[in-house]
């Protein structure tokens, strides 16, 4: 369920935590939904199980996940399934800043970038 890019400058545990945050905020993961086990995630991606545990543990301490006895990790009941638009927008902020920086470095006019982005969003 996660998209892992080992070569990214973002550590794998952080990639998992951020994806969980987005999936929960966007409502794709709903309260009570069980997550795949640490072993399944580690085995599927051939990554270190400790990395997955670390990510789940962080998500748990932030209140996104809760540990269900004998069942594993689930999306926490306290998490509202859909965050406000402003909260979801805030999650996109780093990518938007990256995009803006790249566009400036390439000396692209803003309206051309926005037109293209608009078309991508409609797809």
């Amino acid at each position, binding site marked *: 369920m996660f998209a892992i890019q080992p070569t990214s400058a973002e550590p794998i545990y952080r990639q998992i935590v951020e994806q969980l945050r987005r999936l929960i905020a966007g409502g794709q993961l709903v309260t009570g939904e069980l997550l795949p086990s640490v072993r399944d995630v*580690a085995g599927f991606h051939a990554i270190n199980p400790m990395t997955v545990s670390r990510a789940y543990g962080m998500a748990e301490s932030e209140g996104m996940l809760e540990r269900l006895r004998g069942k594993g990790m689930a999306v926490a009941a306290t998490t509202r399934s859909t965050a406000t638009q402003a909260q979801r927008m805030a999650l996109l902020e780093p990518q938007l800043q990256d995009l803006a920086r790249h566009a400036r470095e390439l000396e692209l006019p803003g309206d051309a970038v926005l037109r293209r982005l608009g078309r991508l969003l409609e797809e």
Partner: protein
Amino acid sequence: MNAVLRPITNHHAAPLQVRKLSHGYEDGTVLAGIDLSLQPGSVLGLIGRNGAGKSTLIRAMVGLLKPDSGEAFLFGEPALKISDSVKARLAYVPQQPEALAWLTAQQMFDYVGRFYPDWDASFAKTKLREWGILPNKVLGKLSPGERQRVDLIRALASQPSLLILDEPAAALDPVARRDLLREIALRAGEAGTTVLFSTHIVSDLERVASDIAFLHEGKLLLQCAVDESKERFARLWLPASMSAAAPTDALSRCRHADGSLSVVVERRADGAWPEAALLPGARVDALGLEDLFVEIAG
């Protein structure tokens, strides 16, 4: 998490420890005072350029080479004279295995399996099939890649407490390589197997390693957790006009044709980047391990 399922005979001894190890060949020094200690359940990815001395270091670790000075210890015993009980818990796969060339893979497994208390014969049989090795072909007639695959299976089937692999990825196609990484990751995470592997394929290391060490010019650089390496180090780029302000203790520096300068910097104790990062025109780029490696070793 790092639970060790089987008892450790030498209590509290690290699975692998290297102290002030130095070694040279006639054409120069290869290892210059290496210190290293592995905790149970950790997976150390050792990276370095070709000829950096990775194989020499590994051979000294497993007692196949007597270093000029310094020592290696396996479960607390000097690597040059380890007991049979430590031997049974250690598995080492060299880059070019040559032993027992007159046996078939199946005969070799039947033979060596007797020396390992936890030998997993069905795993060995399954993996031979999955990795495309004919069990009845004499080892001496296998290609070097097939030969190393057989030896990797031998090492894994012995269910070692300490697994040392010298460039294991070179012999494997992408599917088998992923399979090996999965074995390494799950065994370390679940059975507490301690693993050291050398590689120049950085993405393999990023997947499964808990820790990294760069072997460069005889020394180990950046010995730290993989996640930490990505968060603690970055490339600071300074325009030509500001390059005089570059931190003097940077890990590497590279002057570009236009006079600008890039250096690898480390976060300070308070988490902030060195002050030069705040200069006008300065830019801090997060680095993946491969970029970090190239910046420092390139």
